[in-house]
């Protein structure tokens, strides 16, 4: 399975999405990427590491969150980053960076379908 090609399929309907990264959350590693233009590896690594930190954040009190975080959206200025994982299988995530106008709900639905497919293919 060509991960880059599948990521490109995922990115295509979202013109505001500049870069997609498939990340291993535990290791903070980039497993695959697709971008509209060349991105320094350091940027991709930072994206994967941010996904690992934010999706794996622990909560000292179950009064705050009783289940695992599966979606993170960060908006700053005109830039949006979102990190999406499957609640049932949180080992890998799809990270997106792009415009804050991205329909994150639609992207999350498609990203989770791809994550499920990739998980089943392993």
């Amino acid at each position, binding site marked *: 399975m060509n991960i880059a090609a599948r990521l490109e399929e995922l990115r295509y309907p979202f013109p505001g999405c500049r870069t997609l990264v498939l990340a291993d959350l535990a290791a903070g590693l980039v497993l695959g990427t697709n971008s509209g233009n060349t991105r320094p590896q350091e*940027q991709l690594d*930072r*994206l994967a590491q*941010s996904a690992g*930190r*934010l999706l794996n*954040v622990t*909560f*000292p*009190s179950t*009064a*705050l*969150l*009783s*289940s*695992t*975080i*599966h*979606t*993170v*959206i*960060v*908006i*700053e*200025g*005109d*830039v*949006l*980053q979102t990190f999406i994982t499957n*609640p049932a299988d949180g080992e890998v995530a799809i990270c997106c*960076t792009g415009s*804050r*106008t991205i329909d*994150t*709900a639609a992207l*999350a639905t498609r990203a989770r379908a791809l994550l499920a497919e990739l998980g089943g293919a392993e």
Partner: protein
Amino acid sequence: MTKGDSLLDRIIAAHLAPDPPSNGHARELAAADPDALLDTVLDAVTQTYLPRRLCFTAPNGTAVRVDVANGRILGPHLSKPSPSGSGHGHDQDDPSEGTDILPYLINLTANETSLTLTWERLDTTTNPANSAIMPFMTPASSQPDDEVTSLHIPAIFDFFHHIHTPTASLVMISDGQITQSQGDTAPALLAQAITIWNMAPVLETSRGSSLQIILLSSNDQTFLLARSDTHHLAALFDGEQAHVLRSKICELAANRP
């Protein structure tokens, strides 16, 4: 907000009264009574509802841990040499190590981006000063220049508190003071918010931004965290609402007066 006048700066400055730091941002701990002043500093830190134990990472990669609950610094750099002379103490989980700070000169500084702790032994000239930095907020930015960044956090607060879904818990800080607090879990919420702010990425925006919004969703709850130069807002919503809240924020920006 003026440089060096961040939330943490104000809190620390308030708790270091009555003698304001000579440079406005720092206070040296004299070796004569470092425990008392350290307690004061830790009290100040505790007022921000930080976790019971903080971990600072020094530039050399060494972790320095502060046991906030017991007002002690843990970690190899702040331990006395072992009786055998073989080096520093190593049991970082031993609270008794906190009593070993006496030979050290400690300097705490806070600015808009970080809390910095530096220390050096007073009884030796061979041990250079060490330092640890705890990033606290994103760097101060240029003027807000688009719809989202021109939103003010009080407007977000009003929107979500009075118009949108009632929140399970909510805290807002304005100019270093907690101005709104709702729900039994508000202190825990703020502690968690600070943890998340510390690990959040600084996005490479094409234009300067003074507002960062972070949404985190699980199956049944959603965090909304917003911070600017002068305000911090943390709110906990029932339900998975990250995407809804993102849309609401953009809608709020579009409809702003």
